[in-house]
C-alpha cells in the first residue's frame, strides 16, 4: 500500500499547493465571471459578462492590439535572437583562447533585467525627446523633436514591442546557440570534403537544424507577451489597451459591477494561453526540442 501510494504522497504537497493557490484562484475568477458574486448579493450564474464583452468594440480592439503586439514582439525577438546567436558564434570562432562563457553572460544581461526596468529603458531611449532622438539630432538627421516618431505610449504599441524585442531576443539566442555550436564541428568538415559554399551549408544544414528550436522559442515569446501586464501598463495608451491591462482597468474601475467583465477577460486570456501552450507542447514533443520538460 505504502509503496504504491508513496509517489502520490510525494507529489501531493506541490500539486495541492498549485491546485489550491493557482487553480483555486482561477476557479474563483471563473465563478465571478459568470456573475456569481455573493458579496454583492449575486448568486445566479449567467453569461451576461461574456455577452457584453463579445459585443463591445473595445474588447475586440484590445484583442487586435494584443495579437499585433505579441506577433511583432515575437517576430522581432526571433530575428534579433538569431542574429545574436550567429554573432556569438562568430565571436567564439575568433576568440578561441578566451573563455567564451563571460561573453555569453553579458549578452544575456537583458534577460535578468526586471521588465519594469526594461520598459523604462525604452522610455528613456525612444520618447520623442529621448536618447535616440538626441543622437539623431547630434548627427543632424533631425532638426526638431517632432520629426522623431512617437514610439512610446503610442496607440500602435511600438514601445511595448521594442521592450520585448530587447528583453526576449537573448532568450531566443539562448535556445539557438547550443544547436549552432553542435553543428559547428561538421561545418568545416563538410566544406572541406565537399567544397560546399557557406551559403549552401547554411541553407541545407543550419536552417533545418535550428528551425524547430527557433519556432518554439518564438512561440514561447508569443505566449508570454500575449499575457504580460507590466510593460504594456507602463508603455501603452489608455485606449486601446492590451487584454491584461484592459482587464485590470475594468477590475479597478471603481464599481463592482464591472468585475465580472474583468474576470471574463481573464478567463478568455487563460483559455487562449492554454490552447497556445498545448500547441507549443505538441510541437516541441514532436520535434524533441525542450528536453527536460517532461
Amino acid at each position, binding site marked *: 500500500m505504502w509503496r504504491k501510494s508513496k509517489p502520490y504522497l510525494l507529489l501531493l504537497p506541490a500539486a495541492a499547493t498549485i491546485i489550491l493557490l493557482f487553480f*483555486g484562484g482561477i476557479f474563483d475568477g471563473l465563478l465571478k465571471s459568470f456573475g456569481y458574486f455573493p458579496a454583492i448579493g449575486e448568486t445566479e450564474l449567467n453569461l451576461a459578462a461574456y455577452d457584453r464583452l463579445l459585443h463591445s468594440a473595445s474588447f475586440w480592439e484590445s484583442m487586435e492590439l494584443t495579437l499585433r503586439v505579441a506577433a511583432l514582439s515575437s517576430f522581432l525577438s526571433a530575428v534579433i535572437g538569431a542574429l545574436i546567436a550567429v554573432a556569438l558564434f562568430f565571436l567564439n570562432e575568433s576568440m578561441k583562447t578566451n573563455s567564451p562563457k563571460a561573453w555569453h553572460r553579458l549578452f544575456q544581461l537583458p534577460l535578468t533585467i526586471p*521588465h519594469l526596468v526594461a520598459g*523604462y529603458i525604452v522610455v528613456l531611449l525612444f520618447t520623442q525627446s529621448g536618447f535616440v532622438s538626441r543622437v539623431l539630432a547630434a548627427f543632424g538627421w533631425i532638426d526638431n523633436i517632432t520629426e522623431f516618431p512617437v514610439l512610446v505610449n503610442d496607440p500602435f504599441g511600438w514601445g511595448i514591442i521594442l521592450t520585448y524585442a530587447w528583453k526576449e531576443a537573448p532568450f531566443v539566442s539562448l535556445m539557438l546557440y547550443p544547436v549552432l555550436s553542435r553543428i559547428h564541428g561538421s561545418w568545416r568538415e563538410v566544406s572541406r570534403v565537399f567544397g560546399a559554399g557557406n551559403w549552401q551549408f547554411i541553407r541545407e544544414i543550419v536552417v533545418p537544424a535550428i528551425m524547430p528550436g527557433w519556432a518554439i522559442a518564438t512561440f514561447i515569446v508569443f505566449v508570454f507577451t500575449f499575457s504580460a501586464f507590466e510593460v504594456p501598463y507602463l508603455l501603452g495608451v489608455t485606449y486601446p489597451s492590451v487584454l491584461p491591462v484592459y482587464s485590470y482597468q475594468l477590475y479597478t474601475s471603481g464599481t463592482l459591477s464591472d468585475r465580472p467583465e474583468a474576470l471574463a477577460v481573464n478567463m478568455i486570456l487563460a483559455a487562449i494561453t492554454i490552447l497556445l501552450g498545448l500547441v507549443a507542447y505538441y510541437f516541441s514533443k514532436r520535434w524533441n526540442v525542450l528536453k527536460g520538460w517532461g
Partner: protein
Amino acid sequence: MKKHPQLLSLFAFIALIIFVVVPFVPLILSSVSFSWRWPDVLPESWSFRAWEYVLNDGRTWQAVGISLWIALIVTAVNILLALPAANALVRYPVRGRWLFEAIIFAPIIIPPFISVMGIHLTFLRLGLTETVLGVVLAHIAPTLPYMFRAVMISYQTLSADWEDQARMLGARALPRFFHVVLPHLLPGILAGASLSVLISLSQYLITFIIGAGQVVTLPILLFPFVSGGDPGIASAYSLLYAAIAIAALVGMDAALKRYYQLNKAPQDLAKGGKP
C-alpha cells in the same frame, strides 16, 4: 567566413555591445543629470540629487530587504515542494503523470495575475492581504514550476545505483539523502533557486494586488516614479533594482562555482534555461 573572420567578428562585437550595453547609457545619465534638455546628448550639468534621495531614504533599504526576504522564503518553500514531487515523477511509475505535470507547469503558461485577481477577495477575507505571508503565497505559483523543472533534470541524472549502494552499505534514509542525493541535486536546486528569486523579485501586479500598499517591495516603490514621476529618481531606482536582481543571480552563481571547487565533482548538468 574564411576571408574576413576578424572584420566579421569585430562587426558582431560592436553590434552586440550596441544591443546590450548602450541601452543602459541614458538610464545612467538620467540618474545623475541636473539639466538635460533636448537636443543635448550629454547633460549640461550633473547632480547626485536622485541618488541621494534613493540611497538615503530608509524606505529603499526596507524595500530591498522585504523583496529579498520574500524571494528567499518563496524559494525555500519551492525547494521543499519541488524535491519530493520531482523525485516522485522521475523515479517512480506514476499513473496520470501528464496530469501532474500539467498541473505543476500550468502557471508558466497561464499568467498568474488571472489567478490572483480571482482569489483576491478570498485572501482579503482570510486576512492574507497586506501581509508578507499573502504575497509569498501569491509568488509560489509563478515560481514553483521553474524550480520543479530544474530539480527534475537533476534527478534524471542521479543514478538509482548510487543510492542503492548507499542503502546496502547500511545508510539510513536521512543520511542517505543528505550525503548522496542532496549533493547531487544541489546544482539543479541552485539553478532553480536563481530563477525562483529572479521571478519573485520582478513581480509587480500580483504583489500590488495582494500586498495592497502595505508590502512595499522594490517594484512597488519604483512604479509611481517610472510611470510619470521624476525621471532622475526613476532612473536611480531602476538601476538599483536591476543591480539587485543581477547581484542575486551572480551570488547564486558564485555559490555554485564554490561548491564545484570544493567538491571537484564531475557533474556538468542541470542548468535550466528560462523564458
